[in-house]
C-alpha cells in the first residue's frame, strides 16, 4: 500500500532517547512533514537531551535550544528575524514537552499565538516531566502515578483531570489547532500539511507515549498510543479557521483496556476507573457538541 509519509529522513541515527520513546517518533514524523527548510526550537525537556551532547546533533536542520519557558517567545523572534531577511520560506517550529507547554511555557505560548506569528508550535505530550524523572505535569491525566504523586500508604495519584492545551488554543481562536498521535502517522502528516496551508500560528498536540514514565514495555508504544485514541482518552480532532472536526473513524474500546496496559494506572480500583470512564464520556460529548456549534456557526 502506498503511503503518504515522505521518504526524506531528517533524523540521523544515534539519538540518546530510551527504547520505544514516542517523543522521538513524533519529531521524526514532524520533520518529514516539514521538510529541510525548517528551524526547530527546543526548550529544556527530553528533547533537549535526545539529540546528544555537543557537538553532536541528530537532526539535519538548525536546532535552537532555549530555557524551559522560552519556546513561544523564541519562535516569535526566529520568525520575525528570518522574515526581516526575506527568509519567509523557512518553517519555524517550536517543539516542546507538555511541561514546557501546559505549565511553565503557557504564558509564552499564549502570547506567541495571540500575536499571530507564522509559526508552528508542536507539543509532544508524554503527560509528565520525564526528563527530570517522571514528575506530574498539568497534562498528566487523572489517576496516574508519578514520582511527585506517588502511591504509598496514601493513595496519592494525580487527582486532577488533564489540562488540555489544544482546547485552550481553540478557546484562543488560534487559526489551526489539532491533536494527533504517532499511532496514526498518516493522520499526523496530513495535519501538518493542513497547518502548512494556514498563514499564522499553528498548534499541534501530539500524544507521545513514554515507556519509561508510563511503565509499559518499550515495544508497546504504538499500541498504547492507538489505545489512547480508541478509548477516547486522547481524542483526535482538528480546528481549522473556526471549523471543528472530531475523528470518529475508529472502533471505540473501554477505558479499562487503555488503563490496564500501563503500570502508571495499576493501583486504580474499579471506582477510580469509573471516574475516568465518566470523564472520558463527558469530554467526548463535549467535543460532539463543539462539532455542532462550530459547524453551525460557520454554515
Amino acid at each position, binding site marked *: 500500500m502506498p503511503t503518504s509519509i515522505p521518504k526524506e529522513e531528517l533524523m540521523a541515527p544515534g539519538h540518546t532517547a530510551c527504547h520505544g520513546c514516542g517523543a522521538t517518533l513524533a519529531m521524526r514524523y514532524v520533520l518529514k512533514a516539514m521538510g*529541510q*527548510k*525548517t*528551524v526547530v*526550537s527546543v526548550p529544556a525537556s527530553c528533547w*533537549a*537531551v535526545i*539529540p*546528544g*551532547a*555537543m*557537538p*553532536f*546533533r541528530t*537532526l*539535519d*536542520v*538548525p*536546532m*535552537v*535550544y*532555549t*530555557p524551559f*519557558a*522560552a519556546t*513561544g*517567545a*523564541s*519562535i*516569535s*523572534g*526566529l520568525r*520575525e*528575524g*528570518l*522574515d*526581516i*531577511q526575506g*527568509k519567509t520560506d*523557512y518553517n519555524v517550529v517550536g517543539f516542546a514537552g507538555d511541561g514546557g507547554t501546559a505549565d511553565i511555557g503557557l*504564558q*509564552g505560548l*499564549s*502570547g506567541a499565538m*495571540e*500575536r499571530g506569528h507564522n509559526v508552528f508550535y508542536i507539543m509532544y505530550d508524554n503527560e509528565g516531566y520525564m526528563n527530570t524523572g517522571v514528575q506530574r505535569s498539568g497534562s498528566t491525566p487523572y489517576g496516574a502515578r508519578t514520582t511527585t504523586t506517588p502511591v504509598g500508604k496514601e493513595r496519592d495519584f494525580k487527582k486532577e483531570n488533564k489540562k488540555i492545551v489544544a482546547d485552550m488554543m481553540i478557546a484562543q481562536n488560534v487559526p489551526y489547532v489539532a491533536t494527533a498521535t504517532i499511532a496514526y502517522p498518516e493522520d499526523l502528516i496530513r495535519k501538518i500539511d493542513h497547518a502548512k496551508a494556514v498563514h499564522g500560528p499553528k498548534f499541534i498536540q501530539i500524544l507521545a507515549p513514554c515507556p519509561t514514565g508510563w511503565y509499559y514495555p518499550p515495544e508497546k508504544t504504538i499500541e498504547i498510543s492507538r489505545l489512547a485514541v480508541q478509548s477516547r482518552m486522547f481524542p483526535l480532532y482538528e480546528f481549522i479557521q473556526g471549523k471543528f472536526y472530531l475523528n470518529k473513524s475508529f472502533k471505540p474500546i473501554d477505558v479499562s483496556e487503555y488503563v490496564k496496559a500501563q503500570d502508571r494506572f495499576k493501583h486504580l480500583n474499579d471506582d477510580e476507573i469509573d471516574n475516568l470512564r465518566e470523564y472520558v464520556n463527558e469530554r467526548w460529548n463535549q467535543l460532539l457538541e463543539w462539532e455542532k456549534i462550530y459547524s453551525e456557526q460557520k454554515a
Partner: protein
Amino acid sequence: MKSVTEFKTIMTGNDAVAYGAKLARVKFISAYPITPQTTIVEKLASMIANDELDAKYVEVESEHSALAAVFASELTGVRSYTATSSHGLLYMHEMLHWVSGQRLPIVMSVVNRAIGPPWNIWADQSDTINQRDTGWMQVYSESNQEAMDTIIMGYKIAENSEVMLPLMSMEDAFILSHTSEPVTLRDQDLINDYLPDLDLKFRIDIGNPMGYGSYDTPDGTFMELKKDMVDSMNKAVRVIKDETEKFNQMFDTNYGGLVERYRMDDADYALIAMGTVASTARFVVDKLREKGLNIGLIRIRYFRPFPYDDILEDLKNIKAAGVIDRSVSFGYAGATYSEIVSALYGKINIPVSSFIVGIGGRDVRVEDIEKIADTVRNESSGVYWINVKKVI
C-alpha cells in the same frame, strides 16, 4: 570631524537612548513596559509607526519573553535591542545567561531602579549589580548624551570578533531617564561609517544546520567555553578603549575608556563613583579643591569588565579612597567597594571606605558627599550608610 547634519536639541535620557538604538540601525526590538524604562520603548514604537525607523517591534507578554525573542532574532543574524528596569531585569536573569553563553552581541538599556519590597520606582543600581556575574558588559552613563552614544559604541564593542558578549547600558532612574538635557543627535552617515551592519558568523542557516546551545558534559568543552568568556571580557578592555577613542575622534567627544578621571593627577585622596552621583561628586571635588584639599574623582563607566588596571594605576599615589555605591550587597558592603578592595589587595595598601548612598532614590546631596570626603581625609576605613534616618 563634525558633520552639518549633527544638531543639538533637548531631550530626556530615555528619548536619547531610543535615538541611540535608531542610529545603531537596530532591526528587531522586543520589550515589556516597566517604569521608568517605558518611554524608551514607546519612543521606539512611535518611530516605527512614523517610518522613522525600519525595524520590527514585537510586543511580548513578559521580560523573560522579551529577551528570549531578542535572543532568537539576533541568532538569525539581525541586530536586536531591548530595554528594561528593576523587576523586569530580575525576571530576565535566566535569559541573560542564555544570551551571553550563546555569545550574542545584544545591547540592552537598563534604567536603574530599586527592587522591592517595598515597591519603589526610584534610582538605585541594585538591579544591575545583581546581574554582575551573567557575562554581560556593564556601562553606567552620567549624562543623556553619554547614554545615547553608549548604545552606539556598545554595539561596536559587543560585535567585535574578539569580544562577542552582550552589553547593558545604564541610566539612573528619573535623574537621567526623565530629565531633559541638551543632546547632540549624531549624523547617521557618520554613525554608519563607525558601526557597520551586523555580520554574525554563526547564525541560523538551513544550508548549514547547527545546534545552538545543546548540552555539554564535564568532559566536553563547557569549562573551556566559560573560560573563553572570561578571556573575551579581558580582551574587551582593549577593544573598549580603542572603540571609545575612535568615537571620540569622529564625534569630538571625550569619553573615558573604562573610567573617567577628574583632577586625579595631583590628588592625595580619591572618590570613586558610578552613574549620576559622579556629577555631584565632581562639584564637591571642585569645592574642596578651592579649600586646598587635593582630592580627585574616578568615575567608573564600565563595571564589567572591571577597570582593574586603571584602578591600580590611579590609586598608586593616593593616601586614602572612598567608594560611593548606589547599591548594597547584604551582609557586606557596596559592590564597587569590594571590587576596588580586591583590585588593590597585595599591591597597594591604603585605607578604603565604603559609602552606601541613595538607596531607593534617596537624594544624594552635596553635604553628603562632603561628609564622605571628610571621612576619606581622616584615612579611616569602614562601611558607612549616608543620610539614613533614625527609625524608632
